[in-house]
Structures are given as C-alpha cells and as structure tokens.
C-alpha cells in the first residue's frame, strides 16, 4: 500500500522539478508529467481496490508521525478512495485530453494541472480545516491560472471574476476558521466536531460556521451567487471547464461535505433549501440558453446544488452514512462523468450554439456518447442519476418532505427540457457541414471517461435497489434484446427485424402461458401486436441502425411494464418506454418539435406519477410493492390524482392531448401503428393497475372515478370532433385514437364488471382496428408519398386490398353491427346505463355517431371519388403491410362471430375483482339490461347480404363498366380530377355549426404555460450581466440574506 | 354636362359630339386616346359603370366602330365613347384592368367580330360558339342564311308567315296596294 501522502508529495515534487529542469529535460518533461499522473491514478486505484474488494477499515495518516491536534492528518476511507480514484483517473484523462495544449504551452500547463490535481487530492484527503483552506487556495490559484492560460479577453475576464469570488470565499473561510478555532482550540475536523457539542458560546460558533458556510456557498456556486461561475464555464477552454465542472466541483463538494457535521440543523436546513433553489433556478434559466458551454454551466451549477442539498439533508436526518452511497454518490457520479464528457465533447465541436450541432452525427461514436451522456444527465434509467433521484424521492417521501420533491421534479423537468432539445437537434438530418474538430487524444480521453461511467452505471444497476430475483427473466429479457440489438450495429436490418420477431414469438410461447389475469391479457396483446406490426416494418428499405433496437426497447418496456411487480419496476419500464418511443417518433421527418412536445408531456406525466408514488410510498414503511396503494394513507386521493395524470398524459386525455396528433403524424408511417395500437394502451394498463390496487378514492365530495368518467367521455367526444376536421390521414387517425382511448377510460371509470369488460373489449378492438388502419394508411403513403387525404382519391381501383382493409376497419371502429365495434359499444352502453351515468352515455353515443364522419372521410377521400392523374400508376401496398392487416381482419371477424371467446376471457380476468356481470344463453350474451347474439346477427346479415347480392347479379342487365369521368356533371365535361374530387375541408358546414367544440383552449393554455416558463427563464437570466461588480453584489446579497435567515432579524 | 363636354373636347379632341338627350351624349375620340379618355371619365367625371362595349361593322369604310357606354350613378347620365379601328387588322387596347367586367364584352367581341384585345384574360376562349371555324358571324360579309342552310339540315316544305306579309295579305289589302303603287311611282320618277 502506498501511503496517499505520496500522491501529494509526488505531485508537488514533479511540480517543482519540471520548471527547474525545463531547459535540460525539455524532452523528458512530458514523460515525467504523465508518469506522475499515472502514478497518482495507480495509487488511488490501489486504495480503491483495497476498500471495495477487501473492505478495509478507514485509514488515517498522520503527518510528521504525530497525532492531531499537533499534526495535519489525512483520512482515506471508502468514499475518499472512490473519489480519489475517479478524480485522478479523470485528471489523467484530462491531461490526455489537453495533450495538444500542453505541448504548445509547455511546462506551465503541466505544472498548473499538477497543482490543480494536488489541490483536489488534498481537498478530498485532508481532515484538517486549515489544510483544507490551503488546498482550496491551491486549487483556486491553479484554476485561474489555467483559465487565464488561454490568453483571450474572455478567459482573462472570467479568470479575474473567479479570482474575485474566490478571494471573497477564502476571506470568509479564514475568518470562520479563526472563530471556530478560537472556540474549539483545534484545527482538526474530527476534533472540532467532537468539541463543538460542548461549546457554550453557541452564537459565536454559529457565526463561525456561518462564515465557513458562506465561503463554501460561493465556492460551490450556489444561486444566485454564481454569475462568475457561468462566465468561467463559458469563457474557459472546454478541457479545463470539464475538469472544473467534474473533478473541481466534486472535490469542493467533498470539502464542504466534510465540514457539514459542524453545522447546526438550522444551518443545514438553509443549505438544503439553498441547494434546491439553485437546482431549480439554474435549470429554469438553462431552458432559454443556447450557448453550449453556458448551458452546461447552468446544468453543472444545478447538479452541484442538488448534491449539496441532499448532503445537508442527510446530516439533518443524521443518516448520512446511508444516504451518501445511496443518493449522493450516484447523483455526484452522474454529474461528474456526464459533465466532464459533455464539456469535452463541446471541445471537439467548433460551434458553441446548440442549434448548430446537427452534424455531430458525422462521427457515430461521438454522437452515441453524446446521446448517452445527455440521457444520463437528464436522469433517465439505467444511469446512476436515475437511481439517485429515485432513492431521493422515496427517501424524501418517508421524511414527508413533499414540497422538496415537487421542486426537485420541476427542476429535473426543466433540465430534461433543454438537454433533450439539444439532443433532438443533433438527431435531425439538416446538417451544417464540417463542425467537428477531430483529435484522437481528445477522443481517447473522452472514451476513458465514458468507460468509467459505464462501469459505474453497471455497478449501480446491479446494486441499485432493484429486486433482481423477483422480476427475473421476464423483466430483463425484453430490455436485453433491445440493448443487444443496439450493440450489434453490423447485423443487416431485415435480419434484425426477423430476430426481433422470433424473439417475440419465443417469448410469447414460453412466458405467456405462465401468466394469468389481466396482465396476461395485456401481454398477449402487446406480443401479438408487436409480432405482426414488426412484420410490417420488414418492408423498410433504408438502412437505419437504431430502428429495431428502439422498437424492441419500446415493446420490451411495454411487456416489462405489465410484468412489473413493484413501483420501481413500473417506473423503470415507464421511463424506458417514454425514452424509446421518443426516439422512435423523433426518427420521422420534420418531427423535432412534435417529438419534443411528446417527450415533455410524457416526462411531466411521469414525474407527476413519481410524485404520486411518493405520496403513497410511506404507507407500507418503505416497501415498493403495489400494496402501498391498497393501504389507506393520508394522501390516497392526491396520490391517485397525480398518478392518474401520468396515465392520462399517455392516453392523451382531453387537455393533455396536444402531443398526440403531431407525434403520431410525424412518426414514421409504420411506427405510428405501434404508437396507436400498442403504446396508447400503456396508460390504460396503468389505470387498470391503479384502479385495482386503489379502487376509486374520493377527494372530498368528489368521487374521482366519476370525474374520470367525465374526462373519458369528453376525451371521446372532443377527440372524435377534432378528427373530422383533419386533412392529414395520420392526424385524423391520431385524434380518432384519442377518442377511442377516451372510451376505454370511460369504461374503466365505471368500476363495474360490465364496465371493465367493455373497456377491455374496446381496447382489443381498438388495438386491432388501429393496427389495420395505420398500416393501411402507411401502405397508401408508401405508394403515393403523401398523407394529405384530398390529394389522393379513387385508389380503390389501384389498391383494392388496402381499401377492403380500411373498409372493415371503419365498419368496426364506428360500431356498426355485425363487426366487433358494436360489441364494444353494446357492452359500454349497457354498463353505463346500468351504472346510472346517463349523461355520459349520451355523450359517448354522440361521439360514436360523430365517428362516422371521420370514418367516411378517411375512406372516401383516399379510396373513393376521383383518381388523380399522378397516381394513375400506383400499385397495391406491399404484402408486408397487407399480411398483418388481414391477420387482424381475420381476428376481427373471428371475434365478431364468436365474441364469447374474447368476452369469456375478459370476464375471467375481471370477475375476481368485480364479480359476475354477464350470463350466456348459447351464443346470446345477457346483461342486466339487454341481450345480444353476435352469431345470429352475423348470420342474418350475411345471409341477407348474399341473397340480395345474388339477386342483383341475376336481375341486373348487362352492366357497362364506366370510368371516372363518366358522371352526370350537369352535362358538362369534368375539368380535372382534382376539381371534381370533393374532399378538401369536407366538413366545413359542420365546423360552422359545431366548431365551437374544438376551439383550441388546451393549446392556448399550454402555450401560455410554456411561454411564461421561457419568459421567466429569460428574465431571470438577465441578472447575470457579465459584470464582475454585479456578481460581487449578488454574493454580498446572498450573504446578507443568509445571515438574516440564520440568525433571525432582531 | 356641358362643362364636361368642353373638357373632353379640350383634353381628348373629341369630335362628332352628338347630344341625344339631356342625359346622353356620344362623341368619338382617336383610337390612341381611348384608354386615357375612358380612364379619365371613370376617375374624374364619375362614370364608374361600364354598361357595355358594342361594335359596328362599317364594311363600307373598312372600319369597326367601337362604342364604350359608361354610366354615372351620381347624376344619372350616360356617355358613349366611340372610336374607329381598322377592319383589316382589328385590334384594340383592353380595358379589363379598369373594369373586370370588360373581359366579357371583349371576349364576345373577339368571337363575334374578330376584334382582338391583346392582354385580356381568356379572350380567346369560346363565348357562345364552341369550336367555331368560320368567319366571325357578326361581320357583315358573313352570310348567315347560307351558312344555316348548309349546316343545319333545313326541313323541306318550310314556309314563312311573318307578320308583315300576313297583315298585308289578309287585313290591309287596299293599303298594301296603295303602298306598292307609291313605291312604283317614286322609282319611275327617279
């Protein structure tokens, strides 16, 4: 074991030797420098190994062989070793990154880097408060020198601002040390903490600790005393900025962390809220930011604030030993690696504006790293940030600190907003050329950091409080498949699709029989739907590496969602689903804005859901099972509402539906089918789980299920209403989907056996129909190249199979007997009338008749009417699209003739919860109100139809087949098919009469919400004027405020 | 009205001033002045309505006479602005930019007289005659009876009983005789 003091010694030594021998050993200099760096890394690795693997005891080092208070002591324990290791390794990587700069600048840069590293190592190791001060000074001096090394006015001004702020911080720290020392009589931290308890002059001590606190608040760049830091991040070269943001803040934080035990609970509370405020406001301000480095600066400040806040809270609870590894470290690592990595990526790109980052895709590896880092920073699973936040939220809920969670999640949403927007830009095709500044050293350094980050991620994934035994293979396999495909980019696309299909099939074959109840029902839908819809994607010709992996991840997350047996599994799958579907939607043409809207709505929903979980979490003393919802708690109805909003967002309920049309329409055509047929069912599944677990609580006087029923009914009506005015086939279907899902919500809200049977029947129906319709439309768009309905027309002659599919689809969706749609409607109305919700019944009925309008429009504008000259030579849609459609049609016919097969299974799943609601007499299903014999209906209709058709065939004289212009056109010759095809603004008179129903209130509301958020962000940002004096004023302001808060105004 | 006529005389050198009624005047201007004159009448004299554009085939002098009938809603007066264009190469400036309604008249004149109005939209589209391939039918040298007999399968045995002959033969035989006698006398004296 090499004593860690040698780290300091070696760094210091090399730092002295290099300038002295600059002339003589000029060639050897860099080698010595790197050797020193490697040495420190190795030593820290040794300690790291010692503590992690062997589980050694905390080790104290006493300088000069004397015990404190006489000597300075260093301490290396588990946490120190971990931090030391990552710091030194990253320091080494940083040195590699800056190779070019170092070789240009020579010894000076090396020395400064060594000193910086020395300071940081010292900050981590030392247990002596004055020593801490010294190391902080070393860090600060080396940092401003590093900043100023790049001799530009911006850097120099940034360095100067840093120096001013740092000077203030040092002054306060020194003052504080003096006061505390005068009281405790020791400089050793442990000694101070021990003796602080017995101090009589509490007031003086608190002033002393307050001084120290001031200093660290400045050093840790807390809001709003952090204007200088943002200028530093913006003005510095990315290599240095990465080091400052990554290891710099980490070490300063750790120093702060060490002093925290000194503080009283009141002080800690201030620190905690100050940190949270920093997190919230920095992220809010980041939203409007377009300069990459400054944006990262905001994020960096925010993350530091969060970590500090959590640490302060952990000391308040007195639970720091548990919270540090569970929450603080993952958050810290997440910040550390992603920020370092992103800064360094920024160093590889010439442009500073986020909007110009499009062509980062030129380098696939770099782009992949970039996306992964962004996702990790936004707190998506499976990265450490996710675990940190998850644990934090749950722990906070146990502490009943719900306001904290609200603010935390709001801040996280802002952060995700600007980060995902940035990521979204790079995923789009519109590229400005040649912005990459490729440098193999930089890449190497980046890869080192990312590799460590992967290791950390894997570690947290394995040890995070994820119950690995319980979920088992069911849970992991789908994710594994998606990830596996992602890591195998060389496999041809078609093969990937086939692999996906076969895995789905195998999975269904082995695991479906084991399941039971409603879950099996959902899984059967997801698996069969996934199988056949994936079949349709085999038609693709473009070579896109990421499509199948993302698709599999989405399907996998849906299946995992169904299989999840605790809230963590649920939320994990939910987040992966959101993420994968976001990227899938983002692949479509011109979808940047729409997919962003989708992901923001989904994330907000997910965060509200998480809040809902948090409100229920304390019910069972920290168990994560769904049982928490069954136990009546203080916040049951609030929890229900919050979680419901999460699900309502996914189901695009009225008011939360803004994303649906755009994202369904802009996603690739075969992807839309997945979104509508499968993904929209995720929210439904959530409701099923929630309502089963929680029942339908009432909030005050209001029965929440009743409110839910109105939401469902209104969604059904307004969704349908909006569908009829759309010109774009996919937007029309999207709104149709919204309306249909509204029915399902309505059915679930009934909370009776019949209602749930209706809802689930409707769900299967909707799944089959939307599969057919979206695929058929995808086929049409594939052939014609447009999704504007009025541009098509008369395609029945060219695409008879697609036409037939759409025809059956619309007959089924509109609820006309004899197809399944009627079954769903029948069950729904029986259930609603049975329940006594007559007005909702009327509304649902209205919606179902309005559905005829868009159904007719869809089929007429595309397939009937006048064929256009430009589509004279289109062919039938590819068989890849048609085969799944006809499989679904066969299923529809089967369920139409024998609905008992389906209803019996649904009833079996629902009966345990609600009892028996339907009886059978042969093929007649009998409810408490009425009866329905689907087989008889089908037979009668079929026989009459066939008899009449044959009759017409016999009776009709020789029929002359005529062509499109052989119409009675008031004895005129039709001019062009375009002018003869009545399809554009088809329902204009209806809009004049009923348009008031679809006025965009929701759109206006959300627009005003986002605009005000951006406005606030922009306005707040203006406090950072770039003027050093303003920054000093901010700092002083913070000091005054903190002073008054901590002491109280007397 | 008189003042207006004076102004027109002065500005456009109007000739052939024919004051038919207190509220109706005809005058003629040069072909080159016509557009300016019409514009002037519209913008400054208040003749905001183009009632119609008519044409006359002066086959003897080899010209087409065009008359632009304008109406003033304020003082309820009408003017007819005449101009004469060459019959061999009939072309006239289009005033469709002043009145969109002029398009119809110009299109009709193009069809019926063969007068071209370059720049007028759809001026070459058929108006009443679809696929006409003969002389413009309103020209005096077009023989409509001959054309009808050649084209439209006249039904044999058709006899005309127009009102004049009918009346002369059946009701006023004596008067008709007198009339014929006078005509004979006059012709003889000539």
């Amino acid at each position, binding site marked *: 074991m090499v004593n860690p003091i040698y780290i300091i010694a070696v760094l210091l030594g090399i730092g002295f030797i290099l300038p002295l021998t600059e002339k003589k050993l000029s060639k050897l200099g860099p080698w010595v420098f790197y050797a020193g760096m490697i040495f420190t890394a190795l030593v820290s690795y040794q300690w790291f190994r010692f503590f992690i693997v062997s589980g050694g005891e905390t080790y104290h080092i006493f300088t000069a062989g004397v015990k404190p208070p006489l000597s300075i002591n260093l301490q290396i324990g588990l946490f120190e070793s971990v931090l030391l290791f990552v710091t030194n390794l990253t320091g080494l990587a940083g040195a590699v990154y800056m190779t070019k700069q170092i070789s240009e600048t020579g010894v000076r840069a090396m020395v400064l880097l060594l000193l910086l590293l020395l300071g940081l190592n010292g900050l981590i190791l030392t247990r002596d408060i004055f020593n801490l001060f010294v190391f902080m000074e070393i860090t600060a001096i080396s940092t401003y020198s590093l900043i100023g090394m790049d001799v530009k006015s911006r850097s120099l001004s940034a360095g100067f601002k840093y120096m001013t702020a740092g000077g203030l911080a040092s002054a306060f720290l020194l003052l504080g040390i003096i006061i505390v020392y005068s009281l405790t009589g020791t400089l050793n931290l442990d000694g101070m903490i021990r003796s602080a308890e017995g101090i009589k002059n509490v007031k003086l001590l608190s002033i002393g600790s307050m001084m120290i606190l001031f200093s660290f608040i400045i050093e840790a760049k807390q809001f709003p005393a952090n204007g200088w830091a943002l200028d530093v991040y913006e003005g510095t070269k990315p290599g240095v900025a990465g080091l400052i943001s990554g290891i710099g803040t980490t070490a300063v934080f750790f120093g702060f962390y060490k002093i925290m035990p000194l503080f009283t609970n009141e002080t800690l509370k201030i620190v905690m809220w100050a940190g949270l405020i920093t997190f919230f406001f920095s992220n809010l301000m980041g939203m409007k930011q377009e300069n990459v480095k400054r944006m990262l600066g905001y994020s960096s400040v925010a993350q530091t604030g969060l970590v500090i806040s959590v640490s302060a809270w952990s000391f308040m609870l007195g639970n720091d030993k548990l919270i540090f590894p569970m929450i603080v470290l993952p958050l810290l690592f997440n910040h550390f690696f992603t920020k370092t990595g992103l800064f360094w990526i920024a160093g590889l790109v010439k442009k500073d504006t986020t909007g110009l980052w499009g062509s980062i895709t030129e380098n696939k590896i770099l782009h992949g790293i970039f996306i992964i880092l962004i996702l990790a920073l936004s707190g998506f699973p499976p990265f450490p940030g996710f675990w940190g936040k998850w644990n934090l939220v749950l722990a906070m809920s146990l502490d009943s600190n719900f306001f904290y969670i609200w603010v935390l999640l709001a801040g996280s949403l802002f952060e995700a907003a600007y980060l995902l927007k940035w990521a979204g830009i790079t995923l789009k095709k519109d590229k400005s050329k040649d912005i990459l500044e490729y440098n193999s050293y930089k890449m190497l350094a980046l890869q080192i950091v990312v590799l460590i980050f992967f290791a950390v991620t894997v570690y947290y994934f394995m040890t995070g409080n994820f119950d690995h035994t319980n979920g088992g293979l069911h849970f992991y396999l789908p994710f594994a498949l998606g990830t596996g495909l992602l890591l195998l980019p060389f496999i041809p696309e078609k093969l990937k699709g086939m692999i996906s299909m076969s895995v789905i099939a195998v999975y269904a074959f082995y695991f479906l029989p084991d399941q039971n109840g409603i879950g099996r029902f959902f899984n059967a839908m997801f698996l069969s739907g996934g199988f056949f819809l994936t079949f349709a994607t085999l038609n693709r010709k473009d070579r896109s590496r990421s499509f199948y992996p993302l698709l599999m991840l989405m399907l996998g997350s849906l299946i995992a969602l169904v299989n999840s047996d605790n809230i963590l599994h649920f939320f994990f799958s939910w987040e992966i689903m959101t993420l994968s579907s976001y990227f899938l939607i983002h692949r479509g043409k011109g979808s940047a804005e729409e997919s962003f809207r989708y992901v923001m709505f989904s994330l907000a929903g997910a965060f509200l859901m998480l809040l809902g979980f948090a409100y229920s979490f304390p019910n069972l003393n920290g168990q994560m099972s769904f049982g928490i919802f069954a136990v009546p708690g203080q916040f049951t109805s609030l929890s229900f509402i919050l979680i419901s909003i999460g699900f309502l967002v996914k189901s695009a309920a009225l008011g939360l539906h803004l994303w649906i049309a755009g994202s369904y329409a802009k996603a690739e055509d075969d992807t839309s089918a997945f979104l509508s047929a499968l993904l929209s069912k995720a929210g439904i599944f959530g409701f099923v789980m929630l309502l089963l677990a929680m029942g339908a609580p009432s909030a005050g006087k209001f029965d929440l299920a009743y409110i839910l029923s109105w939401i469902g009914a209104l969604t059904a009506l307004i969704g349908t209403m909006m569908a009829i005015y759309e010109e774009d086939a996919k937007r029309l279907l999207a709104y149709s989907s919204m309306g249909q899902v509204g029915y399902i919500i309505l059915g679930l809200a009934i909370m009776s056996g019949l209602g749930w049977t209706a809802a689930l029947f409707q769900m299967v129906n909707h799944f089959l129909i939307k599969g057919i319709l979206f695929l058929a439309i995808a086929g049409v768009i594939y052939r014609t190249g447009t999704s504007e309905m009025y541009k098509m027309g008369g395609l029945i002659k060219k695409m008879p199979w697609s036409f037939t599919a759409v025809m059956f689809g619309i007959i089924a969706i509109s609820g006309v007997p004899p197809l399944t749609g009627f079954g769903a409607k029948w069950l729904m109305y029986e259930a609603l009338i049975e329940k006594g919700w007559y007005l909702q019944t009327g509304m649902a009925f209205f919606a179902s008749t309005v559905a005829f309008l868009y159904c007719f429009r869809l089929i007429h504008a595309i397939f009937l009417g006048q064929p256009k000259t430009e589509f004279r030579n289109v062919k039938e849609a590819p068989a890849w699209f048609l085969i799944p459609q006809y499989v679904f049609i066969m299923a529809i016919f089967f369920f139409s003739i024998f609905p008992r097969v389906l209803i019996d299974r649904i009833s079996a799943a629902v009966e345990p919860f609600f009892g028996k609601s339907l009886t059978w007499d042969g093929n007649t299903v009998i409810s408490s109100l009425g009866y329905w014999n689907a087989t008889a209906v089908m037979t009668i209709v079929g026989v009459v139809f066939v008899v009449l058709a044959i009759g017409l065939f016999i009776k009709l004289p020789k029929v*002359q087949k005529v062509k499109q212009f052989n119409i009675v056109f008031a004895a*005129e010759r039709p001019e062009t098919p375009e002018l003869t095809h009545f399809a554009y603004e088809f329902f204009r008179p209806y809009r004049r009469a009923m348009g008031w129903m679809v006025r965009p209130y929701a759109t206006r509301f959300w627009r005003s919400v986002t605009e005000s958020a951006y406005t606030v962000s922009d306005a707040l940002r203006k406090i950072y004027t770039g003027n050093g004096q303003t920054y000093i004023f901010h700092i002083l302001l913070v000091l005054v405020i903190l002073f008054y808060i901590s002491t109280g105004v007397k | 009205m008189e003042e207006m006529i004076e102004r027109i005389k002065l500005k456009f050198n109007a000739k052939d001033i024919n004051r038919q009624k207190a509220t109706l005047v005809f005058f003629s201007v040069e072909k080159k002045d016509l557009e300016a004159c019409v514009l002037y009448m519209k913008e400054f004299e208040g003749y905001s309505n183009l009632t119609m554009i008519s044409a006359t085939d002066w086959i003897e002098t080899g010209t087409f006479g065009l008359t632009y009938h304008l109406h003033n809603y304020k003082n309820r007066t009408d003017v007819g602005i005449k101009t004469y264009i060459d019959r061999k190469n009939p072309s006239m400036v289009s005033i469709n930019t002043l009145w969109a309604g002029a398009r119809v008249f110009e299109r009709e004149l193009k069809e019926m007289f063969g007068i071209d109005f370059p720049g007028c939209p759809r001026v070459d589209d058929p108006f009443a005659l*679809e696929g*006409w391939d003969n002389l413009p039918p309103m020209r005096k040298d077009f023989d409509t009876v001959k054309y009808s007999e050649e084209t*439209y399968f006249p*039904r044999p045995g058709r006899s005309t009983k127009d009102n004049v002959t009918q009346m002369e033969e059946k009701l006023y035989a004596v008067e008709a005789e007198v009339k014929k006698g006078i005509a004979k006398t006059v012709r003889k004296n000539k």
Partner: protein
Amino acid sequence: MTMIGEENKNEKKNFDTELFCDAVPKEVPRINGIIQKFYDWAQANSLWILAFGTGCGSIEMRPLYTARYDISRFGMAPRPTPRQSNLFIISGYASVKTLKRIVRSYEQMQNPKFVMGLGSCTVNGGMYWDSYNTINRLDHYIPVDTYVAGCMPRPEALIAGFEDLKKRIKEGRAEGANEYAKNFEWYKANQKKVIKDWDMPDYNW
C-alpha cells in the same frame, strides 16, 4: 407547349382513355310477350322528366307541375339526374352549344328513353331557322318520339303530347334508344358536323 403538341401527335384520340369509357351503345332487343307489355305499361305510367330546360320553352313546363295542370296524376315527375329519368323534353330552340349538352345528357340516360320536342324550333328551327347558331331539325341529332308544335305550345298541348307519347310507348313504338344505337354513326356524323370541338368519346356513358 411543344410538349403538349408532341403528346397529341402520339395520341390519336383527343380525350384520355383512362378518364372516359369509349364503348359504343348497343341495341337491346325487346323481350316479346306479356312481360315487355307490362314493362311498357310501367314506363308509360312512370315518366320521369329530366329537369333540363334547354331553351325558352321550359317556361311552359313549370305550370305542368302546379295544381292547375298537375302531371303527377300521370305518374310523371321531374328528376334532376339523367341516370334516373326516362323522358327528355327539348324545350324550344337548341343552340349548338346546348346541343352538345343535350347529346351528353341524352346519352347518359338509360335505355328505354323518350324524347319530346317542344315548340316549333325543334321541328324546323322555327323563328331561328336562319340563325348561324341554332339547329333546325332535332331529329337529325337524337331520335325524337313526339313533337309538340307551337311557339309556344300551351301546357294543354304538352299534356296532349304526353298522351300521344304514352300511346306510342304502350304500342312499343318508342324505341328511340335502340334506334340511336342502330343508327349511331349517322347521328354521330350529324352531331359532329355542327359540334366541332368534340373532346370526349363518341358516346357518353
């Protein structure tokens, strides 16, 4: 413009065969016997008039539907689409431009179809006999079952004409559609003689 010219050169027909059906009409023979009689009787008692006033004479058709004359007594009614009507009344003079529309509408009617010429103009041109733009004899362009002469004939005269037409139908002599199919080329030649910009197929289905 040159592009269009070239295309026209290659394509002999002056209409798009993808847009129009260019089949020619065929004669449909009468079935002999009682069924045909029955059908004839029904046709005679259910005359649906194509509501297409081709000329000034159509003003005389309006009173027919009023309480004073009331042709609905005979099962007659106006019908706005040629597909469903079986009686075409050419009401007065027919200019060449209108003739084109008359021919199209006539061809769009289904086989037992009857034509009544209303007014002298349809007989021999009437007062427009020497017009450059008005046809003289309607029966050179489409087969006519009955003429009602006069300028204008009164509604009573029209009703008398209907009675005459019904008699013809019941006797099985009103086979204008078959006659048109049989002498299709003659009719078409006559039509094309006056309608010079024929841009559709010969028969408008």
